[in-house]
């Protein structure tokens, strides 16, 4: 995991930077950042919706949190599709 995130920017000893490798690594880092953002917002939303009064344990809330996670992904995908459609429409009108 250590070496996987860009300790070697495609130099491979030749002294020249490989743009292809840099681009791949940047893509990975972007994907990681997006996953983190999604996770953080999902956690925030599901905590607010499912945990009214924080008690001694999660037991009763686990089912709510699980459903919330699924609904969050459904919502995310719906929004993504809707936004994409809107962008296509705007481009078509230009």
């Amino acid at each position: 995991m250590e070496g996987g995130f860009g300790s070697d920017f495609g130099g491979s000893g030749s002294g020249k930077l490989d743009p292809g490798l840099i681009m791949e690594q940047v893509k990975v880092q972007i994907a990681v950042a997006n996953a983190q953002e999604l996770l953080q917002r999902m956690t925030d939303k599901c905590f607010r919706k499912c945990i009214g009064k924080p008690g001694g344990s999660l037991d009763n809330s686990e089912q709510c949190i699980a459903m919330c996670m699924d609904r969050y992904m459904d919502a995310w995908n719906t929004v993504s599709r809707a936004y994409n459609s809107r962008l296509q429409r705007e481009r078509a009108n230009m």
Partner: protein
Amino acid sequence: MDSSSSSSAAGLGAVDPQLQHFIEVETQKQRFQQLVHQMTELCWCMDKPGPKLDSRAEACFVNCVERFIDTSQFILNRLEQTQKSKPVFSESLSD
């Protein structure tokens, strides 16, 4: 975003056009992703999450996305118009 891509080009001299294109594409993708994240949170149309996303909630999300984009465009257009007569962002702010 525009100033950052031109300043990075200036800093590195001639930027590999392949890399430049890559940066532009990824930047645009990121803008899209960011907005989806924001709108999903902003437009949350459910009280308590249920076993599925019902059609009313789905329609609510779609409407919200459309109105959000409309709002954004309206603001840009109106700002452009009012800027012409009464500049809100004066030159001195950029000093």
